[in-house]
């Protein structure tokens, strides 16, 4: 007869945590040892008691549908937040990320611009007898220094081509696009008189295509639909507000940029929805 079984081995036996050989050994011992058999019965009774005690807790319904809905919404919010933050960091990082080389670049550019501005002022004063200095060409704009620093007419004297926003229509890729560099490039050295319409048109076309892609794919989950429409309404209000601001301030590049950023938010949203639907949910 083998040695009697301790409590832990018995527990492991009933929990199915022993090797097959050990299980067989314990089984044969229990058949031949009254003491261990009694201990096993007690253990079984206590285990049954434990199971019964937890039954009410574990049998209580789990609100699967509501959890699914909440988690879907939370994941969608997470994706939107990620898209927005990546867009923002992309935009601001470009402005604020001062590495050594970049700092040198900015410094040299500033020196060149300063010389160019001085040269332009001197030349204008000597050739024309105009009473109007450069800084006062757009008197309604507050940051006059910025106007001088940009000196757009010196670097690119002609109004450049309008912003060519060619956001591709991507219905299956997961990362929404954002083109902050284009905004910076378009806003920094360029005077902005008529760039609103072309840029807007491009965005509107992209949005229309994405919208039709989403609509053509029927069967959106109700939770997703509600969240989508809510976010869409917010973005549309944002667009309307920035658009009216851009229209009323046609010379303000910031106003145009805000409007384009609003359009980009909508493109991001539509891309996210298209991804979520075509991908069958958030997958990696």
């Amino acid at each position, binding site marked *: 007869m083998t040695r009697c079984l301790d409590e832990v081995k018995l527990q492991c036996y009933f929990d199915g*945590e022993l090797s097959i050989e050990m299980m067989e050994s314990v089984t044969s011992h229990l058949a031949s040892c009254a003491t261990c058999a009694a201990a096993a019965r007690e253990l079984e009774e206590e285990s049954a008691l434990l199971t019964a005690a937890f039954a009410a807790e574990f049998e209580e319904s789990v609100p699967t549908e509501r959890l699914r809905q909440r988690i879907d919404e939370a994941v969608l919010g997470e994706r939107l937040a990620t898209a927005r933050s990546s867009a923002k960091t992309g935009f601001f990082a470009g402005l604020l990320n001062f590495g050594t080389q970049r700092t040198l670049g900015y410094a040299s550019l500033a020196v060149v611009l300063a010389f160019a501005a001085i040269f332009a002022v001197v030349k204008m004063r000597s050739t024309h007898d105009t009473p109007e200095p450069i800084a006062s060409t757009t008197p309604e704009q507050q940051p006059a220094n910025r106007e001088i620093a940009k000196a757009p007419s010196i670097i690119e004297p002609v109004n450049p081509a309008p912003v060519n926003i060619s956001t591709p229509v991507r219905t299956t890729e997961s990362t929404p696009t954002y083109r902050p560099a284009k905004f910076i490039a378009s806003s920094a050295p360029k005077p902005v008189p008529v760039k609103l319409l072309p840029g807007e048109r491009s965005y509107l076309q992209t949005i229309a295509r994405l919208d039709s892609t989403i609509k053509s794919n029927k069967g959106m989950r109700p939770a997703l639909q509600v969240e989508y429409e809510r976010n869409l309404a917010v973005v549309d209000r944002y667009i309307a507000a920035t658009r009216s601001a851009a229209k009323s301030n046609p010379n303000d590049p910031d106003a145009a940029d805000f409007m384009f950023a609003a359009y980009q938010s909508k493109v991001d949203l539509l891309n996210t929805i298209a991804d979520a639907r075509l991908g069958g*949910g958030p997958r990696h």
Partner: protein
Amino acid sequence: MNGQARALIESMPNDIGTEAVGPLSFDEAFTLHHRAVFRTARAVVRDSALAEDVTQEVFLRLYRNLNSTPGEELLRAWLLRVTLNVARNTLRGQSRSMVRDNEYHKSTAETGFFAEAPEEDYERRVAIEEARRALDKIKEPMRSCLLLKQQGLSYREIATSLSLKETNIGSLVARGRKEFARVYGKIGGKRDAVSG
């Protein structure tokens, strides 16, 4: 993931590693494990509404870490460890409130969830409360071992969830079970359990 869990996963042969098992998709993980997560959360926070919050947070963390979570074999253990952590943190910020839980059940009953006869609901609530009171008397980590064992976790999963040695789990479960039976019998739950 702490060192022990990582060591556990790294000690596995390659053929059952994370990649070999193949990660579950987020949807599959939810379908398979949301009940265990919700029940574990509810057993800790004692509040169904809070348990929903915890479950949401756990799956949000899964979503954020889909590429770094263990494979299918230990995913439930990972989820339940996160559940225990989130639930305990939630408890620290909340006072336990049966009132809130009762209100939650009232509202869900009104909307069709868990609709039951009042007497059945009362008896069930009493049974749950007795079990919870008994469980409260059990010291950690035996308490969590019992909770996870009742959810059907293997010793290995329990060890991963609680950052314990797998060889100690049998002992902890055995001691916890004996202690629970003693305390539960005192509370009066044994009578109900035997008669039921």
